[in-house]
């Protein structure tokens, strides 16, 4: 079935992988340090960092003093720790391998 070699195609398109790593955002919303791939959109990191900080801040106003926040998406876990008004945020893609390792 050499004919079927057409099933693999050269394609310029690339798929964005879910990142694995962390970044730290200060209380003013600036990314201080990041171990995430530079190919990952910075705008998403900024949005995520600011959303996390807002969530910690508003939780405090609601009387809930949080230390840690974990967002569970279908295939991604985002964990964040409060850091003197800023936050450190970890991205961990979930695959069958990570699920098995946890169990």
């Amino acid at each position, binding site marked *: 079935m050499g004919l079927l070699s057409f099933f693999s195609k050269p394609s310029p398109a690339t798929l964005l*992988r879910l990142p694995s790593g962390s970044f730290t955002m200060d209380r003013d919303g600036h990314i201080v340090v990041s171990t995430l791939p530079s190919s990952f959109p910075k705008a998403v990191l900024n949005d995520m960092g600011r959303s996390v900080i807002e969530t910690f801040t508003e939780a405090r106003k609601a*009387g809930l003093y949080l230390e*840690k926040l974990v967002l569970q998406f279908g295939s991604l876990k985002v964990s964040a720790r409060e850091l003197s008004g800023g936050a450190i945020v970890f991205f961990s893609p979930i695959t*069958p391998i990570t699920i098995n390792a946890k169990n």
Partner: protein
Amino acid sequence: MLWWERVTGKMETRQKILLLDDDQDLLDTYGEILGQLASQPEVHKCNAGARALAMLESEPFHLLICDLKMPKMDGLQVLSAVRRQHPHLRTVVLTSLVDEQFRSRVYALGVDLFWQKPGTEQEIKQFLECIESLLGREGSGGFRGVQSKSLVDIIQLECISHSSSVLRITNGLYTGKIWINEGELIDAETEGAEAEAAFHKILSWKAGNFETLPADRDRPRRILQSYNALLLETAQAQDEALQENAAWAASTNPNLSPQLAPLARYDGVEFIVAAQNSGRDKFESHGIEAAEKVADWTRKSLARFRPFADHLQAGPLELIEAINHDRRIAIAEQGDNEFCVGWRRSVTAENLGPRMKKLLALWAS
């Protein structure tokens, strides 16, 4: 008219597949391969994600077969939009990518099948069998049709027709089984309960899925009552439970609805806030002061993080977990409500997700 109704209203017509790949040669080849299907579906081809979404919008399809690596709008972006706009459409990913992360993300997006592009005759045959099976499920509408009946209807039907079967019922993380032999209910089993008690518990679930398994004639009989007596007893037990919850709510928190009372009494729960996502000020709570602020925080947190599911194509936001000195807090939505639940710190991180799912299943019941 809903998408699903539009499709099922044309059952006599050929089923329609939309094939999406940016490579025209591959589109033609797959088109020919799909032409071998016994059901002879109509195969429509498309080479761009945006065009595929427009086609899905303009006419009903039964199945979308989608590549992942495509320029401009990749397969994950297409599938993410499809899941939101056409939740009932069956979807298959056909890709040359061999990567566990993408496989996980694809399934998290609710895709029915992830197929590596077939390279041998045997793989093509298996691929076609899977597609035929998916189309068959879609055409017969079987499970969905059954779902429109209540569990009581199904049990009565099985008993009146003197059938022998095992009904397996799933409600969130809960699973139960009911054994029927020659029209007699002989046993039931679910988490933490058996026989009559299990039957009562299973029938308290108002929603879920069920399937009929082959009869188990060797199953020992542990339920001795007739099905009619048992159904009557179950109805009475449900009324009593409702009254008990209402009485408990009246004595501890007069503002608490009987629906929320069992959740507030759930093992490990310290407080609960249920906010309606349609009404800004509509919420009820138990066990917490400043509930209004917590309800507002719950709504805002879900609204803030939900869009990341689309931005990242990481599957839906299933749970937000927050931890402080005293407790674990979990936020999730169920139907029209958004819940913030404070759990005792003794509830471990591993148990929090499953417990929350069970709690929400209780609400759905």
